């Protein structure tokens, strides 16, 4: 066992870190902390593309850099610590690329992969999975994709689609088999869909933090050419499940609230000097030490998951564990931070009176999304119990 990084890895981390420091100094972006998806900046994505940091862990033959998932995690850790604006390519890099490499046609790979890796125009993706009655249970999707000649005609509704209002392309799950006798999870297919196709309506949903980050997406006789079907017809659900582990591997699940955590540590350091009662300071210190332990464990769980992928193994249970652990930790960070900082922690977006340069109040309001998006904690624990421990289905 080895818990240190190679010298190359340390140097790479430094390279990323220095790049980001430079960008921060130059004012390209500033660190904020919202939900999962970091801000969108094609300009920034272009800089990353230049450095070969998009498609970093895709195989070289697929326009990637062939780097390990552990290397990729180093990259992501540095990016996410400062909440770099990687939203433009993030989903495509994390999820679409690997899915196309695994299941896509040659044409699809050639069409999308090089453009994603280059942060070309028009390649921002959004996911179109969930529906009003298919949240945790994706196999229950009812959006229909009916074959008509060389195309599919899509009708139905999707929901909770992050960034669907800015995305160029959608990654759609729809029902393609309508025989009730067929099990639901053998009846869906995956498609890539151009979000500008006639018949698509995107309606914003304002979230509990008062912000527009996700949407409803309506499909009214939307036509998708057959070549945009990804993988096997009716195998979409299985394909998505296979890809989910990658979605859950990421360190974004630990670092959504890292800027707050970082500021909290600094805050507590100053507490004893700045007139807070010693008793309260001791309490705060104990709380933050516990968070630090959790943070370190979360980090190891993430790197372990990445390493398992690098070993060519399926990390289902480990990825589920990591996401469940990390997201609950993030919620505690927000909660403990408000408890330590006290009443002013609820002041939003006020340059003068907010306690932190990163908005703690808004972060707290985003908290509920952490443990829901990309598999609720409950679903993840089911995965650990069933796939990890082999317990019998209920």
């Amino acid at each position: 066992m080895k818990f240190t990084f190679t010298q190359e890895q340390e140097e790479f981390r430094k390279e990323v870190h220095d790049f980001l420091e430079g960008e921060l100094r130059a004012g390209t972006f500033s660190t904020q902390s919202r939900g999962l998806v970091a801000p969108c900046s094609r300009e920034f994505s272009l800089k990353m593309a230049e450095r070969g940091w998009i498609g970093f862990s895709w195989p070289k033959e697929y326009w990637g850099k062939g780097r390990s998932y552990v290397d990729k995690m180093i990259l992501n850790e540095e990016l996410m610590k400062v909440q770099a604006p990687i939203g433009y390519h993030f989903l495509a890099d994390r999820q679409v690329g690997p899915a196309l490499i695994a299941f896509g046609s040659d044409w699809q790979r050639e069409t999308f992969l090089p453009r994603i890796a280059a942060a070309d125009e028009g390649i921002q993706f959004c996911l179109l999975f969930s529906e009003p009655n298919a949240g945790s249970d994706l196999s229950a999707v009812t959006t229909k994709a009916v074959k008509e000649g060389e195309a599919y005609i899509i009708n139905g509704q999707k929901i909770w689609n992050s960034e669907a209002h800015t995305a160029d392309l959608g990654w759609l799950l729809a029902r393609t088999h309508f025989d009730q006798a067929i099990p639901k999870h053998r009846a869906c297919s995956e498609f890539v869909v151009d979000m500008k196709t006639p018949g698509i309506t995107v309606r914003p949903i304002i979230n509990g933090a008062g912000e527009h980050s996700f949407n409803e997406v309506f499909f009214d006789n939307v036509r998708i050419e057959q070549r945009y079907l990804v993988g096997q017809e009716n195998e979409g659900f299985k394909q998505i499940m296979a890809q989910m582990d990658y979605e859950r591997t990421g360190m974004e699940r630990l670092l959504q609230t890292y800027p707050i955590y970082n500021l909290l540590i600094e805050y507590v350091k100053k507490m004893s000097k700045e007139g807070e009662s010693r008793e309260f300071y001791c309490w705060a210190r104990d709380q933050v030490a516990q968070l630090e332990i959790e943070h370190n464990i979360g980090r190891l769980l993430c790197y372990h998951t990445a390493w398992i992928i690098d070993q060519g193994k399926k990390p289902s249970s480990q990825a589920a564990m990591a996401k469940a652990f990390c997201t609950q930790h993030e919620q505690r960070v927000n909660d403990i931070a408000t408890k330590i900082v006290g009443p002013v922690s609820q002041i939003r977006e006020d340059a003068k009176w907010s306690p932190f340069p990163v908005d703690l109040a808004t972060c707290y309001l985003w908290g509920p999304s952490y443990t829901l998006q990309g598999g609720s904690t409950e679903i993840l624990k089911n995965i650990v119990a069933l796939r990890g421990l082999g317990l019998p289905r209920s």
Partner: protein
Amino acid sequence: MDFNLNEETVLMKDSAQRFLQKKCPSSLVRELIKDEVGYSKDIWKEMTELGWLGFIHKEKYGGFDGSFFDLFILFEQIGRVLLPSPFLCSTVLSGLIIDEAGNEKQKDEYLRPIIEGEKIFTTALLDENGRYDANDPKIEAAKTRDNAYVVNGTRLLVPYAHVADGIIVCANVKDSKAGGSTLFINERNADGQEKTPLDTMSVEKSFAVDFKNVKLPAESIVGAPGKGERYLSKILPKATILKCGEMLGGMERVVEMTVEYVKQRHQFDRPLGSLQVIQHYCADMATDLESARLITCQAASLLSENIPCEKEISMAKAWCNEAYRKATWTAQQVHGGMGFTEEYDLHLFYKHAKASELAFESSWFHRSKVADAMGI
């Protein structure tokens, strides 16, 4: 021991609940949060007419000599609908401070119109770091030669400062004879008060108030100089328990909403509420709620009977802080994406739980008071 509400209380509770449900739908709460004024003058007028504002105040100043416990039950109802209003800061906090410490002139001039809903008062008790500092206020009142006081400093999270006819502030009088923590009334027209609206999680409008050389006459002192903290320490426990009542009401709604939701919502071809994990989540919420109800009602009841209950108050606030917050977390988790949308009411309670936790001191603070009371 009697765990029933008495008949009178039940009548009051039911009518208050009907009134609030009718007048204050969540759509109105949303509006008022965004509104500049931040409360409904119509409802305020009706509250006055219903006698709510003078509920526990003395008859001689226009009040009704009602029971504190019933006022607590009223705040529970307010918490169920999250009605934004200056009720707590004006009639309760400011009103009781003036009643406790003010002279007859001040009571006539301020308390009576507060009870009559004609004047709105608020209190400014938190320093620039948001900490309560009445025992050694960081805001100073320098005595002038002409026997006036010049106030300088900043107070944060002052509710409804923008509509307040008077702001009660606890300032530090620098005076060798009778100095220290002292209560002042800042009338609206006093020069030098700068109010900056703050966007917070609370349903109440909240402000930063800068006092810049605000000159106040000696008559604006409430009670004896140097005794500001002592007066406050008599009144704040009451406000704390009313806040707990509000939290209790909010928590009730959160549990109701969640139980209702899991009965209706289907996932994996069965009602969500038939899943054992969801059932246990709900059982935990219900237990926390029942616990909050008992421990909070206990403190309210003892307060109402003038039985010393500092410890019971702190137990209640410490428990409500965590129970309400946990309830909103669980509710959000169970509701899934739906609960995280603005159109659904849950986020209002999610915010209210955290804002209330942060108001009137943290769980840690109150646990520390419990330990004090235990003699450890």
